[in-house]
């Protein structure tokens, strides 16, 4: 525990408080809710703010690469300790989570106003935030897993928040079938799907954890770094790479990466504030954070001569595949929240890609910084976009973009903020955080020197084109063109489209402004993080980065140190994607429906993408329909016949006579039972003490 002069608070305590406070709030909220439902919102806001402030108080130390590490005894019989580890990585992440969560909580007071189950909502929101902060701050894998399952549980509860399964809370199009299976899901189904699919990742993570624990005898991140003899013996038995990859399996599940990505779409059944939280601050970011947490450890091992290339290769490829796979689907989906969900998965893929190539390159810190910087910028603009989408849903009363249209005159603020945040997602050059972080990823991939650098780079750039396209499409469909029939119908009935209330637009306004505001000084910000992480990695993991003079052939002073190829690629990607989007959806020079139907290739491609590359249907066929079918077969032809009819009936005949005897005793008169019973007790007592 350290004390910083001028700050009289014990920093260890603050680090604990960051995650404990939300849980305290969750515990007292039901009681508060009994007294006054209105007060619950204020309690939630107060605790979220307090937690975020605790995170801020750690920031000065963290920016100087200090760390706070504080442990207490937990399961002493196995020698496991619980602890908080507030190093620069954790503190920055805790701030991102804390502040974005705080803004979302403020937004929720408007969005969830009047919901009769509001107490349950706050409970799970605070539980969610607390669990995420455990993941961020815990100093060992086991405690992290508590948070890990905590966010899974909270997501189950919040995705299925509207558990009454009303038609308006479903996602998908009713009646639409893919490979014979419905593509229309209720909130409770979606919650279950999310929980079970992420659990598949979790069991992989558990196996990875166990493998490491079996050799190292500890779950602690610092302890694992301190003495790496475990890695030697694991390597000897050929288990080091499997353990690392299994650990990454947890991140695949939680961050909705390929092949465990299919839950993310249905997660849109939750209230939009929840979607914002899941996508920006908690849950899916947990996977990236896990990789950021363990990545340096494995890189340090790799630098010490362990063969871990395969591990980083897996991360990079999973990221790249997810990025493009989900981005393509974002182009065609008609539901605004689903477009954003696809976009999240795809952007997380970018982060994984960056962290993966970091391990493959000589300059670990480049990719590492790029991935983490993208996490921060994505958290801001995606939270903003989701909250804005929530406003749209709130106002229009439909999740389909085809039910919107022409809204720019009626919701000017939302329109402006959505553009700002959307530009961040598209990576609009030089003024958005998204541009800088994405450019850093391109550069890291391009410069990594890995044998797969070029294909990965090509996928990343293609994804950027698609991203720019679908973002423009989304904004075009919602705000441009004519009003949809749905809105006209609403207006006829006297519901006028209006701007969202103050408590809602302020939070996403702030984040949209930050996307641009930090974007303007983006390069400086990136350099700051880069320096901090260089020092952090060198200090904690002994990963020294050679100070390479970047090839700066551009000659423009403020672009010093930027890779020209990466820069050119990002500019081109933005221009092509946004341009196409403009042609189809803003300028509306070409009708996209006619265009798709114009030839068989586009038509089939559109269909395959709209059917989610048939992946979702395949998951259901293989892991739901087939096992149930199998279980039914065993039930019918084994349990009911061989076991039940065979053994039980056979025995029953044999003991038939005893049944007759017993039937005689069933006189129905309690008194006679009592005599028999009393005699029995007497018998037993006598027998015991003869």
């Amino acid at each position, binding site marked *: 525990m350290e004390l910083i002069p001028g700050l009289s608070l014990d920093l260890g305590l603050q680090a604990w408080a960051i995650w404990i406070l939300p849980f305290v709030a969750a515990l007292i909220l039901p009681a508060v809710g009994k007294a006054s439902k209105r007060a619950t919102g204020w309690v939630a806001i107060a605790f979220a703010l307090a937690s975020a402030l605790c995170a801020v108080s750690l920031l000065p130390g963290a920016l100087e690469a200090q760390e706070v590490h504080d442990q207490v005894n937990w399961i002493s019989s196995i020698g496991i300790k619980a602890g908080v580890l507030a190093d620069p990585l954790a503190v920055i992440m805790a701030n991102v989570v804390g502040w974005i969560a705080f803004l979302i909580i403020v937004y929720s007071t408007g969005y969830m106003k009047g919901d009769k189950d509001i107490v349950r909502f706050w409970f799970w929101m605070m539980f969610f935030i607390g669990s995420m902060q455990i993941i961020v701050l815990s100093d060992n894998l086991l405690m992290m897993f508590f948070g890990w399952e905590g966010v899974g549980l909270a997501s189950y509860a919040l995705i299925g928040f509207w558990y009454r*399964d009303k038609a308006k809370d479903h996602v998908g199009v009713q009646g639409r079938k893919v490979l014979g299976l419905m593509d229309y899901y209720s909130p*409770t189904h979606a919650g279950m799907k999310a929980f079970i699919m992420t659990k598949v990742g979790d069991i992989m993570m558990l196996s990875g954890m166990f493998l490491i624990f079996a050799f190292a005898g500890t779950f602690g991140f610092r302890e694992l770094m301190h003495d790496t003899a475990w890695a030697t013996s694991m390597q000897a038995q050929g288990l080091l790479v499997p353990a690392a990859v299994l650990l990454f399996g947890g991140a695949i599940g939680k961050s909705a990466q390929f092949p465990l990505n299919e839950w993310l779409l249905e997660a849109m059944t939750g209230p939009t504030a929840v979607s914002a939280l899941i996508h920006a601050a908690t849950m899916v970011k947990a996977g990236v954070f896990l990789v950021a947490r363990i990545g340096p450890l494995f890189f340090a091992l790799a630098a010490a001569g362990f063969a871990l290339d395969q591990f980083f290769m897996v991360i990079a490829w999973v990221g790249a595949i997810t990025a493009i796979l989900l981005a393509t689907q974002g182009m065609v989906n008609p539901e605004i929240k689903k477009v954003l969900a696809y976009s999240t998965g795809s952007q997380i893929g970018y982060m994984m890609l960056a962290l993966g190539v970091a391990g493959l390159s000589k300059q670990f810190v480049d990719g590492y910084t790029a991935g983490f910087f993208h996490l921060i910028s994505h958290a801001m603009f995606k939270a903003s976009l989701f909250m804005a989408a929530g406003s749209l849903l709130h106002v229009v009363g439909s999740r389909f973009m085809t039910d919107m249209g022409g809204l720019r005159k009626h919701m000017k603020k939302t329109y402006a903020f959505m553009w700002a945040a959307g530009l961040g997602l598209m990576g609009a050059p030089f003024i958005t955080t998204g541009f800088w972080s994405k450019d850093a990823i391109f550069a890291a991939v391009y410069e990594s020197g890995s044998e797969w650098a070029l294909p990965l780079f090509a996928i990343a750039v293609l994804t950027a084109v698609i991203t720019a396209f679908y973002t423009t499409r989304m904004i075009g469909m919602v705000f441009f063109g004519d009003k949809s029939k749905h809105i006209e119908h609403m207006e006829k009935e006297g519901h006028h489209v209006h701007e969202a209330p103050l408590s809602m637009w302020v939070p996403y306004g702030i984040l949209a402004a930050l996307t641009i505001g930090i974007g303007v000084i983006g390069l400086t910000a990136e350099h700051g993080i880069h320096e901090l992480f260089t020092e952090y990695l060198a200090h904690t993991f002994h990963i020294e980065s050679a100070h390479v003079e970047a090839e700066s052939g551009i000659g423009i002073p403020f672009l010093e140190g930027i890779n020209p190829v990466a820069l050119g690629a990002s500019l081109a990607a933005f221009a092509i994607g946004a341009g196409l989007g403009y042609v189809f959806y803003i300028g509306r020079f070409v009708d996209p429906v006619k265009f798709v139907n114009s030839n068989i290739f586009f038509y089939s491609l559109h269909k395959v993408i709209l059917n989610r590359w048939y992946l979702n249907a395949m998951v259901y066929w293989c892991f739901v329909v087939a096992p149930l079918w199998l279980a039914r077969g065993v*039930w019918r032809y084994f349990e009911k016949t061989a076991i039940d009819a065979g053994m039980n009936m056979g025995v029953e005949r044999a003991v038939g006579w005893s049944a007759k005897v017993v039937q005689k005793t069933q006189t129905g008169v309690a008194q006679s039972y009592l005599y028999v019973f009393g005699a*029995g007790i007497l018998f037993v007592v006598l027998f015991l003490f003869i």
Partner: protein
Amino acid sequence: MEFALLQAVFLPLLLAPVAYILGRKVGPTAATWFTFGLLLYCTFLVISVALSGNYEEHYTWTKLFGEFGFKLDGLAIPFAVIIYVLSTILALYSKPYMIHKFKEFFEEHAHDHSSESGAGQSTALVESSAMTSYVNHQSGLYFALYLVFAMGMLGTVLATNLIEFYIFFEVMLIPGFFLVAFWGDGPRRRISLMFLFWTHAGAVVLLLGFLTIGLNVGSFDFTAIQESKIPSDVVMLAAVAIVIGLGVKLAAFVFHIWLPYVHGAAPTPISALLSPAMIGIGAYGIFRLIIEFLPNQYAEMALWLHIWGLATMIYGGAMALMQDDMKRLLAYSSISQMGYILFGIGSYSTLGLAGAEMMYVTHGLGKALLFMTAGVLIVQVGSRSLSKLGGLAGKMPITAVCGVIGALTIIGVPPTSGFMGEWTLFYGALETAIKDHAATGSVLRMVTFGLGLVATVLTMSYMLWMLKRVFFGKLPENLSHVKEASWYMTAPMMVLAGFTIVVGLYPDIFFNDIIPYMKGVLGA
């Protein structure tokens, strides 16, 4: 405290007639609170003794069998505590459930009677007083049997002598049989006989094993048993007999025939005791008799137990998926959970064994909660068929929360105690797998470990699906009148729900006892 365990075991037996008389003369409330108070006192005795660490009591018995003793050590403490905590709490829960049941029976009888005589013109007053006296009689009998059932279970895990163990093992069977036969659902007599037959058959096989050991060693006292004294050609036979006898109790795969019937049909508070507390005693037996007393035989059969456990896990889980009756689903789930315990027993490592015992604790808490949930549904809704339920979370929030916590405990989600059992258990399995792999290059245990983890996903699937069909989704129109259950039912559930979270956050409550014991038996 002198005679603490003697009191804890025999007070319920000796005072059972008092419960009967109280019920008959005063009414179900008095019998309930008497039973509760008595068991609470006994629970405190057990816990206070357990806090002081290992503890033994010995009393002279017969020359023939040896000493009559009670022993509370690291192995027995978690079993004993869970058995009595559940028994105590479920006594309160029994009251509304059993009164509901008695009234149902009374009306059945009355209906039969009136249709037989063809008159059926009895006035409401007569009927209500007849009903009261019927309920009083029945509740007295119920609580008397209940007390004996509880003491039988406790006696088994405290016994220090093979014959004593066997007697208690049978003592818990007899009241169990009557409880099912009198107040079960469906064809209860047939089912109770099935229960009696299968578990008794198991017990006889067990007794054969005991006799083999006892006659060879020359004493039935636990302290006298030494593996080396038994001729090598019969010792394995004895071990197998014991494992099969206990396997029937555990309802391990193939011997699970009786369990879905019995646990589905038993009155719900009894299901909540049978399912987690009683069948798990089979696991206690394996720990005590095989792992502790016959370590060499254990070493030989560990892998088989492991695989048997895996098969039970997966089979029980798959069958649970197919159920529509909630109590039957829970019964199959219990089979699957017993598979986890066997899986852990077969892991042959300290943490795996500790995890297996922890599974008993968490399964006790979680499954009791779930059966209690089912009981609430039976009383408040009148149905336990999953296809007829749905959307009840809004109607009965406390039950829903407790039921969900119970399900999470079974699934093994932190911060419930289930996770603490599960991670240690699977870690233990992996530890041995790694050792095997390093020593012989065999990946068999790696595969079983992986399949075991996959089975946890299966567990999660049937549990969440069950929750969805009971508490979430659309509320059927005929259920719009449903109300939350009385405090007699919800308060016990809340206590257990709190307990499972406390254990999940601070498992040392039980691990402090379990782990040193397991280290001792494995010689690690």
